[in-house]
């Protein structure tokens, strides 16, 4: 009997609310503050959100970050440039090759050797970065779809990502923390059979890719969860420093690969997909189209992959090859000096930007002329993208939409906290 009374009271309240939908301020007692995370599977890492709700509606959403702070910027101050390279793999752990690329570009500009990088290394870098972008987008797609209830996409995504990781393992010996792109070129020559493996993958993936689209792009259920949710206007996107697919889904054409081409991106024929609504669905669509463009770039890179050297010949920067060390005294000295001291760029500063899978990844490096960076700052795209997320939610979204929004900005907490 008592239960019934309570239920009636609750129904009365509900009716009151429905009678007056446009009320300005909700009384304090009806608000509920709940804690989402840090250990929550759909926050993609250890992200904590403090969400204030009025019923199902999100009134306030405050992200609390720092649970994965590992002091990578501080650690880099105590390491030589070659050692600091291995730290960059661990910031955005779905994107290690592109992180390497950004760091290496900064160091190469400090050393003034950007022009000397052999053509084989440049093309290999582009090829590997684009494969990395595809693999990162596959994880994003799988987890994003799984958050919204499409479980099987995750399995397909992981299955195909595994094939890309096999290619990375072939080159560098490891699947994720590759450190394969290094100042002066790439760490080792591309192995025999590499070209065949990539060609096989492209052919296989071209057949598989439409299946992903067929599962989601035109699905009524997917529309319902993503259309018109967490809209980011172009003005807000710029004001909050959002970059990458998030910015391009709002209609602003900024892709580092096009605007500030690096590693020969200006010689590839590809398009930058744009959308205009800036909601979860558009961000989804932009990434889906990006994968196709990345596949095109991989194919072009494969076709023009030249032979020849894969590292510069300057032995003050690049370690000599093993047979040289074994036969030549000077090479042995170079080897010893490089692995005990490392190289010393002239004093100076540089900000190098690359397009990571999540947006503009920037490395701001300052050298004081010693063998260790005085400062290495990582401009992490996820950091800015996450900051803009609450603005798209507060007062406009339901609680379940938070999960859609987190998935659509594709954050990696390792990169947010560094």
């Amino acid at each position, binding site marked *: 009997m008592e239960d019934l009374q309570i239920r009636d009271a609750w129904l009365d309240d509900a009716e009151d609310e429905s009678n007056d939908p446009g009320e300005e301020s909700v009384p304090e007692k009806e608000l509920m503050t709940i804690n989402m995370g840090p250990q929550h599977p759909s926050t993609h890492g250890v992200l904590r959100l403090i969400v204030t709700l009025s019923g199902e509606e999100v009134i306030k959403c405050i992200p609390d970050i*720092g649970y994965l702070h590992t002091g990578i910027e501080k650690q880099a101050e105590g390491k030589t440039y070659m050692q600091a390279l291995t730290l960059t793999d661990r910031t955005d752990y779905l994107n290690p090759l592109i992180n390497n690329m950004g760091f290496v570009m900064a160091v190469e500009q400090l050393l003034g050797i950007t022009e000397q990088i052999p053509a084989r290394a440049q093309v290999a870098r582009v090829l590997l970065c684009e494969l990395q972008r595809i693999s990162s987008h596959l994880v994003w797609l799988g987890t994003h779809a799984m958050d919204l209830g499409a479980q099987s996409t995750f399995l397909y995504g992981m299955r195909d990502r595994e094939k890309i990781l096999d290619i990375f393992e072939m080159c560098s010996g490891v699947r994720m923390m590759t450190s394969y792109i290094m100042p002066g070129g790439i760490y080792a020559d591309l192995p025999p059979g590499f070209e065949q493996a990539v060609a096989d993958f492209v052919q296989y993936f071209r057949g598989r890719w439409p299946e992903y689209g067929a599962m989601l792009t035109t699905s009524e259920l997917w529309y319902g969860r993503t259309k018109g949710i967490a809209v980011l206007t172009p003005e807000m996107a710029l004001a909050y420093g959002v970059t990458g697919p998030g910015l391009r889904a709002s209609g602003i054409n900024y892709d580092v690969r096009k605007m500030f081409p690096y590693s020969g991106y200006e010689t590839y024929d590809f398009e930058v997909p744009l959308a205009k609504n800036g909601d979860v669905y558009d961000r989804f669509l932009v990434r889906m189209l990006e994968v196709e463009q990345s596949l095109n770039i991989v194919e072009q890179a494969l076709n023009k992959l030249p032979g020849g050297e894969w590292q510069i010949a300057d032995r003050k920067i690049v370690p000599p090859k093993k047979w040289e060390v074994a036969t030549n005294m000077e090479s042995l000295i170079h080897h010893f000096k490089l692995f005990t001291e490392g190289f010393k760029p002239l004093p100076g500063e540089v900000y190098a930007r690359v397009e990571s899978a999540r947006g503009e990844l920037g490395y701001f490096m300052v050298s004081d002329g010693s063998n260790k960076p005085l400062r290495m700052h990582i401009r992490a795209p996820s950091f800015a993208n996450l900051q803009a997320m609450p603005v798209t939610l507060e007062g406009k979204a339901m609680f379940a939409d938070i999960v859609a929004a987190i998935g659509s900005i594709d954050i990696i907490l390792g990169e947010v*906290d560094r």
Partner: protein
Amino acid sequence: MTQTSDESANNLVEEPSLLDLARFPDVRKSDFRTADNTPVFIVPAALLLEVMRYLRDEGRFTLLEDLTAIDWQPREPRFQVVYNMIALERQKVIRIKVELPGQEPSLPSVTGLWPGANWYEREVFDLFGINFEGHPDLRRIEMPEDWDGHPLRRDYPITGPRRAALPANWIKLEGR
């Protein structure tokens, strides 16, 4: 009216020196080597907001890419706060620096111009201990709230604060 602002914007591209000469006599070019050919200007803290508003509105540097700091200890002025900006329509980049003393470093916040500067400034406050005047919510962001010290300062040990530095001869070679 639009035409005029366009012209002044174009002037800024062709002649970056306009920024320090005509309008802001106190702004000077940095003489530190920039390996990426970005024009770098050093702005006094008192002028920062005026210069940044000018750059955003007239120069169309709409995207504040990055905001960070450098600790130059033992040099004085010790800190430099660095702003990297980009003008998307004109594909131009610029870097602004503010020099701050080691004692109570403080400068105005640019959150009024770019709301996205909020977290970046919190990060610099957290890791360098630099104060941003007028910031709406200046709290630690990466470190725990009760943390002592500012980890990215040069005098903060890399090994962390709880472990005292070991003396150089800490390994005792017994029996020798």
